[in-house]
């Protein structure tokens, strides 16, 4: 197993399993999530959604609806600014603000079933619901473009008449209007020459379904637009500053008019990086001069908020008999939904990032279809890519009669190796993770009939970006830490631990809070596995500034030079030895006489995020008569850099793995031929339930990431990357046939077993 490096520092608080600062609120029901916030005199907003998947809006008549008692305002796209196209950063990705606006409210065309066409504010939900039924929308239906084939067929119906295929370098040569919005090649060496060197070649085509992030909390917002233009927006978001940018962009106003206040967030996984209700609520609130609350139903969430792209990936791998990879070629087609911007770019970049190779050609296609606009979903694009790439590597190992981990070890990247997408890796723990799985007690355990074992590797870049933190020390020596990073999975506990370690104060004396866009400096989104890395870095820097200030105050008290004062274990030490130590509380109690309140602020743009590698191992048992797959055992091993709060790191690994198990076995959007979702609820959109899964064993490898003072690298996204390949490889071995489609639901698996 892993042997921690002996030079790892010994921390007092970092690495402990402290109680999270927001914990008591969350176990007692006091925590306020999106739909829990209300204001006096509040009214209710609701959305009228498109009843067809593709068509032109001829007219919308609101007269009858306006006459309903209790209705205060009805808006359509005519009430929203007609804004220009412009790209804005969207967490790890970017978005065309015009597309965002059209997604929030359809203007001339509806592009998916469930797209908003009007919104209403009424004094009661019942009045609003009654009025919604009276809004008359006249559509001119258009043929529904439901999948990759329909979108790319000759003479395919176009979703956007003027859309041409773009690349990183601009439009393709001789562009024509098309549903293919983007083409992304990634080439290295000479792939044709590479295949000529291969002793063994394998190839296959893989498909993944449209899936949903499946956060349990539906989107919800409360907006109070003041007469003077100042507008407060409470919302469940992964990025209050991002939402400020998007709302301002859609409504063509200044960001400074908006105060976006993140509520507690009931899960996001990338799906709460998109605005849906907020701009509508702002316009409605302005119209009726009252606070407007809007809450999606579960059906709305599934029909009209961020699913993750369906994909089709063809891949071909050439290798030598000894397992050395010599050439890889792949074509990745991703559904973007109604507007361009699937995560096909990160899919291409991550697909074989874990391996060294000479010759490679990966080509990604971003294709629009009449489905809701795909939103980010935990390591966007990487799970689909890894499903194809890792499953085919598993096939290659079989063909070479080689242990699948040995095959990976033969080709795995290590420190100094250059990633296929460019940069050279620093210290990384991929090989340690592979070895940890290989030496795990059940890697060689015997399997019974109908059982199979599968493993796969996952990679995610992780990101840094901008963060702000404020550390304030109270008169009693307790500490308040404020950041702009929404806490979606316990990050406040980590922020408290960083401050605790730096200040030498026990974590229970540190209150870590999430600020809003007017109480803390700019912070990029909670996404990209960046919060503990980048916002953590901001907390460390802010804490260090506070420590400098504390040393200054002690030096002032002792009439010494600050260089003669050190900070240890929460107290100032006179290095000359002539004064007894001064505790934090003793310094801050007198802060009013020594220069005022003590604290530190940091605003940073964190470079050099640490890449994350993980390896997962899965045992399954298949019922050959029903096609049911039971997960018997599951192991997640990951290089986490440094686990600041090990419990929440393990939780990320376990949660990501189970989401991936869901994608592997049963989660999928089922559309009918009219482009209407047939399973818009948790009854038939089947996320794993508690009895579906075993305990998820975790094993943390800690290879510190040098650019971060505590060695942190992001951990949250990597664990969702390997499961589809690990689970389907296990199934493949159990049944003796390769699984190339997910979800491998029981009917599909039985068909595969029976050869139907």
């Amino acid at each position, binding site marked *: 197993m892993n042997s921690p490096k002996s030079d790892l520092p010994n921390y007092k608080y970092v690495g402990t399993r402290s109680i999270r600062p927001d914990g008591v609120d969350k176990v007692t029901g006091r925590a306020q999530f999106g739909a829990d916030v209300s204001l006096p005199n509040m009214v209710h907003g609701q959305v009228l959604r498109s009843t067809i998947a593709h068509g032109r809006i001829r007219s919308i008549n609101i007269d009858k609806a306006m006459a309903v008692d209790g209705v205060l305002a009805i808006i359509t796209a005519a009430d929203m600014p007609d804004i220009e196209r412009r790209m804005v950063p969207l967490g790890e990705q970017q978005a065309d603000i015009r597309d965002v606006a059209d997604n929030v409210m359809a203007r001339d065309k509806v592009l998916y079933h469930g797209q908003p066409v009007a919104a209403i504010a009424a004094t009661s939900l019942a009045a609003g619901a009654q009025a919604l039924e009276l809004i008359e929308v006249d559509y001119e239906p258009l043929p529904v473009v439901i999948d990759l084939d329909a979108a790319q067929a000759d003479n395919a119906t176009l979703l956007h008449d003027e859309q041409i295929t773009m690349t990183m370098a601009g439009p393709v040569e001789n562009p024509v209007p098309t549903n293919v919005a983007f083409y992304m090649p990634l080439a290295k060496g000479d792939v044709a020459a590479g295949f000529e060197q291969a002793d063994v070649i394998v190839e296959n085509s893989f498909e993944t379904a449209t899936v949903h992030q499946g956060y349990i909390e539906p989107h919800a917002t409360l907006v109070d637009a003041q007469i003077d233009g100042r507008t407060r927006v409470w919302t469940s978001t992964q990025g209050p500053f991002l939402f400020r940018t998007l709302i301002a962009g859609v409504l063509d106003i200044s960001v400074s008019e908006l105060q976006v206040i993140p509520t507690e967030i009931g899960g996001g996984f990338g799906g709460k990086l998109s605005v849906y209700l907020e701009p509508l609520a702002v316009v409605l609130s302005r119209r009726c001069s009252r606070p407007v609350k809007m809450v999606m139903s579960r059906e709305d969430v599934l029909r009209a908020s961020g699913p993750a792209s369906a994909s089709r990936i063809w891949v071909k791998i050439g290798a030598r008999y000894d397992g050395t990879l010599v050439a890889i070629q792949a074509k990745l087609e991703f559904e973007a939904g109604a507007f361009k911007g699937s995560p096909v770019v990160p899919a291409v970049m991550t697909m074989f990032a874990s391996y060294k190779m000479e010759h490679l050609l990966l080509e990604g296609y971003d294709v629009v279809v009449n489905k809701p606009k795909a939103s980010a979903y935990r390591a966007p694009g990487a799970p689909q890519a890894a499903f194809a790439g890792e499953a085919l590597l598993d096939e290659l190992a079989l063909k070479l009669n080689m242990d699948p981990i040995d095959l990976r070890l033969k080709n795995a990247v290590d420190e100094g190796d250059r990633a296929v997408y460019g940069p050279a890796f620093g210290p990384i723990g991929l090989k340690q993770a592979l070895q940890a799985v290989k030496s795990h007690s059940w890697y060689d355990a015997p399997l019974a009939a109908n059982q199979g074992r599968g493993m796969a590797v996952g990679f995610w870049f992780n990101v840094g970006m901008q963060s702000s933190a404020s550390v304030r020390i109270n008169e009693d020596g307790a500490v308040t830490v404020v950041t702009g990073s929404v806490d979606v999975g316990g990050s406040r506990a980590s922020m408290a631990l960083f401050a605790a370690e730096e200040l030498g104060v026990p974590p229970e004396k540190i209150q870590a809070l999430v600020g809003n866009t007017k109480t803390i400096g700019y912070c990029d989104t909670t996404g990209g596995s960046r919060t503990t890395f980048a916002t953590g870095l901001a907390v460390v820097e802010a804490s260090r500034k506070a420590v400098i200030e504390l040393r200054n105050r002690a030096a002032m008290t002792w009439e010494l030079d600050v260089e003669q004062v050190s900070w240890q274990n929460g107290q100032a030490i006179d290095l000359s030895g002539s004064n007894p130590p001064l505790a934090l509380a003793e310094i801050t109690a007198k802060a009013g006489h020594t220069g005022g309140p003590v604290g530190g602020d940091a605003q940073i743009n964190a470079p050099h995020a640490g890449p994350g590698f993980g390896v997962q191992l899965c045992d399954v048992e298949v019922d050959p008569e*029903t096609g049911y797959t039971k997960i018997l055992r599951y192991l997640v091993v990951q290089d986490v850099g440094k686990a600041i709060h090990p419990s929440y790191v393990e939780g990320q690994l376990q949660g990501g793995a189970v989401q991936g198990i869901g994608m592997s076995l049963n989660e999928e959007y089922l559309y009918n031929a009219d482009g209407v979702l047939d399973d818009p609820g948790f*009854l038939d959109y*089947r996320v*794993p*339930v508690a009895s*579906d899964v075993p305990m998820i064993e975790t094993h943390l490898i800690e290879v510190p990431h040098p650019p971060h003072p505590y060695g942190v690298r992001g951990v949250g996204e990597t664990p969702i990357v390997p499961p589809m390949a690990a689970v389907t490889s296990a199934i493949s071995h159990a049944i003796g046939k390769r699984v190339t489609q997910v979800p491998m639901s029981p009917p599909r698996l039985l068909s595969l077993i029976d050869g139907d």
Partner: protein
Amino acid sequence: MSEMIYSVPASLTEAVQQLAVPGAALLAGGTDLLIQLRGGRPVPPNLVDLKKIPELQLIEIGPDSIRIGAGVTGIQITDHAELTSLMPGFVEGVGLIGSTQVQGRATPIGNLCNGSPAADSVPAMIAADAVCEIIGREGSRELPVGDFLTGPGRHCLKVGEFVVALRFPRPRTNQSDAYLRFIPRTEMDLAVAGAAVNLILKNTDSGPIVADAKVVIGGVAPTALTVDDAAQALIGTSLDDAALLAAGAASTAAARPISDKRGTAQYRKKIVAVLTRRAAQVAFDRAAQQLHGSND
């Protein structure tokens, strides 16, 4: 939302009167009704809640029959040790309706009256020869559960009538049952297909054999289907492989499934055979154990 008058009759007589209002609806557990109302089902003018009528809340186990009132919830049934030992298949079918939370409200009679082709409690009711006790303005009547349903969401109740109780013949000591369903997950799904098997065994020199059998399959036709050919395949056998295969094949042949989001017709036809075989084996083992026990 339209107006709806909620009423809570204290007696069957009151309930019959309140249900006489055109369009009036019954409320037992409400776990289907509330979802339907949310999904756009027209709001009934009157909603008559049966949960406060004392005689509807009873599970009565008599020497010849077992009676379960319309207000009895899933959890009352699954918690009932004697009922579970007498009709384990029926109880396991009831126990599969929804989550723990749904079990706390939902009633098997509601499950029956909702008329879903996939209703988990219904096949075992039919296999156990359960009878619906029905009351209405024109008095009482009885109807076998197997004749009660006429299609998805449709049943034989006339306006103003409702099912007061289910009555089962008390199983003999050499009798037992089993219900198995298939769902994609372990919980929380509606049955893709289900099979209930109710067996009466008799001892022979070479061990127990099936003296009488009833096989009922669910989720594979507009209503639960009694498959006589499957029962005939089991009768007279000790449940050897040939008998089981024949019973399964009979279920497949009888099934008239549709393809929908929960499974294809072909898939349902295949697995209903598997479920029939497996349920038959479980029922046989249970009855054999009783037979063995009663001989001691």
